[in-house]
């Protein structure tokens, strides 16, 4: 709970400082916000890592194949990374770069989910 409050405080303070610095030095403000985002993401990663371990043990109990769960986890991770990267580009005022990152994220998500989709299509083909 304490470290969650610290992370939220860090994000808030860096945003306010970023606003203050932006008039004189927008690139430093950008770097400050990116650094704060990375710090908060690192904190989130430790929590998500524990959550992922719990979900893996849950899926082991359910007898689910680890491959299916890891594919879904990777897709979620790619989506999160692509979303944050594209929002950083948008904050910097570069929508074109943001759109490219989003496209890359979508393509990477679909690529990672490909084995699962192939398995489902094969299953549907065998039914029909």
């Amino acid at each position, binding site marked *: 709970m304490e470290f969650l409050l610290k992370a939220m405080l860090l994000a808030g303070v860096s945003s306010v400082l970023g606003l203050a610095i932006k008039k004189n030095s927008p690139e430093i403000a950008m770097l400050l916000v990116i650094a704060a985002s990375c710090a908060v993401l690192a904190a989130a990663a430790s929590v*998500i890592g524990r959550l992922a371990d719990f979900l893996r043990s849950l*899926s082991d109990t*359910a007898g*689910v194949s680890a491959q299916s769960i890891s594919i879904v986890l990777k897709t*979620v991770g790619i989506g999160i990374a692509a979303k944050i990267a594209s929002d950083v580009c948008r904050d910097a005022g570069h929508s074109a770069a943001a759109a490219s990152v989003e496209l890359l994220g979508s393509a990477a998500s679909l690529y990672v989910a490909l084995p699962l989709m192939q398995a489902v299509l094969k*299953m*549907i083909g065998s039914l029909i």
Partner: protein
Amino acid sequence: MKNALRIILAALVLTAFFTVAAHAGEIENEQLETLGGDMISDAVPDSAQLDGMEITDALDSENTFRSLFERAKGGLTDALLAGAKSALAVVSVAAICSLGGAIFPDGGEINYAELAGVIAIASLSAAGFKSYISEAQTVMSDMNAFSKALLPTLAAAASASGAVTSSAVKFAASALFADIFITVTSDIVMPLIYALFAVSVCSCAVGSAALDKVAGAIKKAIKLILTVIALAFTVYVSLSGIVSETADAAAVKVTKSVVSSALPVVGGMISDAAGAVLAGISTLKSAIGIFGVTVICATCITPFLHLGAGFLIYKAAAMFAECVAGARVSKMTDAIASVYAAILGTIGADAIVIFFAIISLVRTVSG
């Protein structure tokens, strides 16, 4: 005087040596054997064997219900365990997708986490779906094979109890509708169930409203086909039974009155004795009918429990997924529950057709 005493003594000695005991119980077994009771016992599916229960034991309702209850209790634990495992798998995937949902709010960019979740749930449910379909096909095949042995014997018993015309009419209707049901189930309903699963997966993965409508139409078609067959059979047997039962009742009454009036002294006794024999065969007919219903229940009970537990658990998992993951993950889970319900409905409709055939033959009224 001495001669008369000798004659009386000789008569007493001969009476003691030449009288034969009356065994009323053997008549019932002989009647059952004549009607083909052995064929029925041999045709009982392996999955429905009830601790060596015989046809004549079927009238003991307490033991019958106890056997069915024990079987249901045993099947329930397995069904709940299997359902709980599937639900855990869905819950795991939904929980992972909820992380993506925090980043991709509804109406925003395409949520690939949800897409992966939908496909993962479809892939995880595929093995369960195939095993339930195979179980349903086996159960329906067992029920139909058993009914092919049971119904002719039951019709013969009904005919022997005086319902000659109505038993023939009802048996013919049962055989016709059983064949129609088998053909329609294997050629239309099962392929529709496969199509429902495939269309549901594609609709939830792509998020297409058109495919949603197709899936809805398939569900309605399955429901309509099963309802129409069961209803048509019920109406046909009921209506044809009304006419033929009246004719049978009249024939039995006329025969009894003709016999009792045609033979001067013993006519009434013969008529009453014939009535007692008919009543005995009616009891046997009821025993065969109850045995048949019990075996059908025992055959259906395990798949009913598996599919019922799967349906309820997936519905609960869909509600959970709606709270934490996106709408598509919840819809996919709900679609799988609907597919299980369709399979359950198909087995149920087959069982209902056979139940009604048995009950209509048992309840043939002969006067």
